[in-house]
């Protein structure tokens, strides 16, 4: 039987305009990794979030995985499926179009769901 593991990387996380990255996560045991994102709320004139999977050989030097990024503009569920990611994983986000006063453009939950 395979192992499965859901890792709650961020829950009820508030993201203003700007860049962020989730904490590094090791998933070398898994054959597949699915980033599952629930956008709970959005605010601001034209909120947009681009989320990319990044990989690393050592947990320190990160670069983009070739999988296409997720684009989010409204509340709902989104997923980013990955294979051939090695061991270290993280998600790098870029938020724009949120409130100019620095308050959150997105409130979201981010999970890794791993299987292997």
């Amino acid at each position: 039987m395979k192992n499965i593991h859901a890792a709650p990387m961020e829950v009820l996380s508030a993201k203003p305009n700007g860049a962020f990255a989730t904490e590094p996560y090791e998933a070398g045991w898994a054959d597949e990794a699915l980033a599952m994102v629930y956008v709970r709320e959005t605010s601001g004139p034209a909120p947009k979030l681009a989320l990319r999977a990044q990989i690393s050989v050592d947990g320190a030097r990160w670069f983009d995985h070739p999988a296409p990024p997720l684009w989010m503009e409204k509340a709902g569920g989104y997923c980013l499926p990955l294979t051939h990611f090695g061991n270290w994983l993280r998600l790098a986000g870029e938020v724009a179009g949120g409130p100019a006063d620095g308050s959150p453009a997105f409130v979201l939950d981010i999970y890794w769901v791993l299987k292997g």
Partner: protein
Amino acid sequence: MNESAQPFRQALLQADPRLSRFNPLERILHVDDFNQGQHGWQGYFPDYDGWDDYPGRYQPVDSVTQSLEKARRNPQLRIDRKLPIGPRGVPMLSSLTSWDVGTAGSLSGTYALKVPTLPQAGSKVFAQKRLGSPWRGKFRVETWFCFKTDPADFQLGETDIRALYLTFDVMDLHHGREQGQEPRRWWPALRYHNAENGQLVRRWQANIGSEGVKDGAWEDLADGQQDLGYNRAATKYQWNYLRFTFDLARREYVDFHCHGKEFNVQGRRHEPDPALEGWRASTDKCPGLVGTGFGIEAATDKRCFLYLDAVVVSASEN
């Protein structure tokens, strides 16, 4: 156990490559080998009932909304009350992989359980599992562990780790009431105070607190000084053995051993001052719980990692 069976059992354990490096009591409850999976060791999340208030809600605990409100109002809230919103350090299976040697693997295979802090001074993260035992004699937890900081800056980082934790939230079974014994709750817990203000401290402590098993207060063990193996590079992992035993019936510490040193804890009790009161003292809904946490705390804005190679939990009938 039958006395003549004891040497035979001992010989079997010592010949078993998986268990020979442990010393379990007569009933082995769990052998959590992290080469097989995460075995349910997960992050800490406080008690709650309901997203919002609702009729008939279990009042002693907050709803998620109440909990959120408290966490937003008070960022210094105790770890066992604070709802972890935003980024968290979550326990994971690590292959101990770094830039220089690649995958070091764990002590007994490829994977260890890693408990990471956030890159934030004071960040304290636990891997948590709700254990228990139908045998209400001694209860023993053993592991092989090591601890490091994030090697991204290539620095040793030993003084960036404030403390390591092994904590227990222990509650009596309820049928003792039939003999007129009111069930009790107590918190046997150990803390390795590794460093403070950039200086190594390296002293074991025991919990004497009444506010939460993970937050102390902590009392130094008289013989608690111990230099644990850390090794001489940020990416060199050195493992230490730990065994801690307490008595569920007598509510007292039995023994504590860490990598070659036996500490004098026999007969120690958790006598919180002030005493646990009201809800804090209650065993309601959790009779027989042995809530177990392995934790690590950062002293600086750098990620700190506790690695466990395996966890063996055992109990005795008396």
